[in-house]
Structures are given as C-alpha cells and as structure tokens.
C-alpha cells in the first residue's frame, strides 16, 4: 500500500468539518481551566488547612495523566447516575487537568504583585472578594499573559485525547475515515499537519500578544 496523495487531499474537507469541534473544546476547556485554576489558587490562600488541601488537590491533578483522568470521569460519573454527553465530559476533564497547571501560574502571578496593593485595598475598605477581582486579578493577568497563553496552546494540543471517549473532534473524525476505508496513514497525516499548523500559528499569536502587552506596560 502506498501513500495516496489524491485520497489525502480528498479527505481534508471532511476532517476540517471537525475543526470547529476541536476549537470549541479548546476554547471552553481553556476558560474552564482558568476558572477552576483561579478558584483553586484563591482557596489555597484563604487559610492554613485550605492551603494544605488545595496543595494536595493541585499536586494530585498534576501527578496523574490526563488520559487516566478522562477515563475516570467518563466511566465513573455514569456509575453514580450522572450521564453527560461525551463532549461535556471531555471539556470537564481538560479543564480539571489544566487547572492544576494554571493554579501554579496564578500563584506566581499573584506572588509578583506588591504587598502594598493588598494593604491599599484594605485601607480603602474593599472586601476580600473585591480586592481579588478588581485589584489583584487585573494586575496578575498582565504578569501571566505569556505562560497562560502557552497553556492554552497546550489545551489545544490535548484536544485529540478526547477521541478516546468518542468526541467527534479532528482525530476522531480521522479515525472514522480510517475505519471506513481501512486507510490509516492518510487521515492521520492530514490531522497531524493541520494540528501542527494550528499549534504553531496560535503560539505565534501568543508571542505577538506578549510583546504587545510588554510594550503597553513599558510605555
């Protein structure tokens, strides 16, 4: 069997149809990961006991493979009567996995903020919640835009994992073509090239954003 170029080009549109699922999953998971990660980090700072508990949760998330976490969610939730669409499970899984990494990013971002900012907010009579949302978070975001952007690229690169729980993203659609035609090489190579292209262009975008933010900051 040879690599069939005509067939490879022929299946590009079919695979690109799944691109919007891939992008949707990536965007939703990035938002979910940032939300959960931020919550984890803020909870970690809220007290001694909560600190230890959240430290453990973050370490546990970071010490187990995303594949095992996806299997866990996919097979264990139905056992307790919670049946969610595969895509929701997938987004939840990626959100939880990357929240462990983003929590660390937020930690570094918050640590970098001058102590005086907290004191000033307190002096102005802001509540703890308002301090975090209106004083700390905006400054933190500028500090961490680059590493956070890099993790969003990682989320995108992790979306093909969802093929194992039958979410119809690009790798899944590639495998559908493969099992229909018994040709594995072409769909997988096409999916690989599209992903490489996507990941590199989004990484460039993050780099551009980073220089823009730095320029705005230094002005």
């Amino acid at each position, binding site marked *: 069997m040879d*690599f069939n170029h005509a067939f490879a080009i022929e299946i590009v549109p079919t695979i690109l149809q799944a691109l919007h699922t891939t992008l949707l999953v990536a965007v939703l998971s990035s938002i979910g990961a940032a939300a959960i990660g931020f919550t984890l980090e803020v909870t970690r700072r809220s007290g001694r006991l909560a600190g230890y508990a959240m430290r453990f949760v973050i*370490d546990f998330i970071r*010490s187990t493979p995303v594949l095992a976490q996806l299997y866990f969610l996919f097979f264990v939730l139905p056992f307790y009567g919670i049946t969610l669409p595969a895509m929701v499970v997938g987004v939840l899984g990626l959100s939880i996995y990357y929240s462990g990494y983003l929590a660390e990013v937020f930690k570094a971002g918050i640590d970098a903020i001058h102590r005086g900012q907290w004191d000033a907010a307190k002096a102005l009579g802001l509540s703890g919640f308002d301090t975090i949302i209106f004083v700390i978070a905006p400054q933190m975001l500028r500090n961490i835009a680059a590493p956070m952007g890099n*993790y969003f690229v990682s989320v995108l690169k992790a979306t093909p994992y969802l093929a194992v729980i039958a979410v119809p993203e690009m790798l899944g659609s590639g495998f559908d073509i493969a099992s229909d035609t018994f040709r594995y*090489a072409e769909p997988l190579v096409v999916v690989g090239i599209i*992903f490489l292209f996507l990941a*590199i262009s989004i990484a460039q975008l993050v780099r551009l954003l980073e220089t823009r933010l730095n320029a705005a900051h230094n002005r």
Partner: protein
Amino acid sequence: MSFPEILVGIFEGFRITAAVVFYGLLFAVPFALVFGILQHFTRGILRFLVTAVIEFWRSSPVIILLFVFYYALPIFGVVMSAMTVSALVLGLNIGGYGSQAVRAALQALDPGQVEAGLALGLRRSRILLLIELPQAIAMMMPTLMNLVIQLVKGTALVSLVTLGDMTFRAKEIAQIEYNPVGIYSGLLLAYFIVCYPVTVIGRWLERRVGVGEGQAHGL
C-alpha cells in the same frame, strides 16, 4: 476483586511503563542537549533548521505523533515495534521541551563565565563542557524533574498502541468486572504513587536552585 487486588493488577503493567520511560529518556536526554546547544550557538539558516526540528517535536500533539508514527510509517516502509515508536515519540517530544530548558539555561548564564574561560585560554568547546554545561544543568534540574513527570504521564498513551502498561492493565481489568470506581481510582492512585515522589524531589531542587516553574506545559 478488592481494591488492593485491583491496584496490584494495575501495577503488573508498571514494568512496561518503566521501560517506556527509560527508553524514552534515551531519546530525550541526547536530543535535548544536542538541539538545545545547537540552537544556542547557531545563527541564520542553520538556526532556523534546528528550530524547525525542535518545533516539530514540541508543537505537534504527542498523541497524534504516536498514531502517525505507528500507523503511517509502515506505509513508507519504516516498520518499528510499538515499544520503539512509543519511546521515540514520547522521548523526542519531551526532548523538544528539554532543549528549550537547555537553551534558556545557557542564555541565562552570566557572560562573564565564558569571558573568564576565554581569558584563561580555554578552547570554546572546553568552556562549554567544563564551565557552561555544569552550571546550566544544575540550574535546570527542577525543569527536568517536571519533564520526567510529563514523560511518565505521557506513557499512559502507549496503551492505545497495544503496549501492556498500567493504563492498559486497568482497561483489561475493566473488561473482566464492572467496578469503574475501584478500577479508575486505582489507576489514578497508581500514577500518583509513581509521580508524586518526583514532584517532591523537584520542589526540593526548586527551593535549592531558586528557579521558578518549568517550561513543560502538560501533554
């Protein structure tokens, strides 16, 4: 099966998991050193080529690389065992991240170190070997620990190309009996037991070296 029995069953796959990690490191360490150093020293077109190779391994989703190499290479006449493909793909992916750690550490060194070496009349290659690399490697130890964890977690993927690792054992047990909670908690626990000590060592090194988070962005 009781929970301890399940855990023991899952750990029957540890030999394969450990083998993939070991062989993966045989690819990752030389790749990271050679390409990190090359990227640091080359300029112009040569640097572009080196960067392209690194970016290929770093920017493609590892799950897709694994499938492409496993299913598509035989069509081009390259037949490798599942173990070789897994070690190669996981290793070079981690090696790609590692090369960035090597380059960053070399760049972070005080230029005075090289100048002092030159003033003493040492050859450039000796300066690299005796002055720059020892300091760079010490500096990037925490990052390397993170990358080792990424590699261990990445090995969960080899279950998808028929290798009998811990994830594969868990799925086998799941076919024998319906106990998703026990089996998939056991799987998460198994990886946690393997990875957590490395996390702790990494954090200890981080405190000693005083360098921040690594550049591994999750797989």
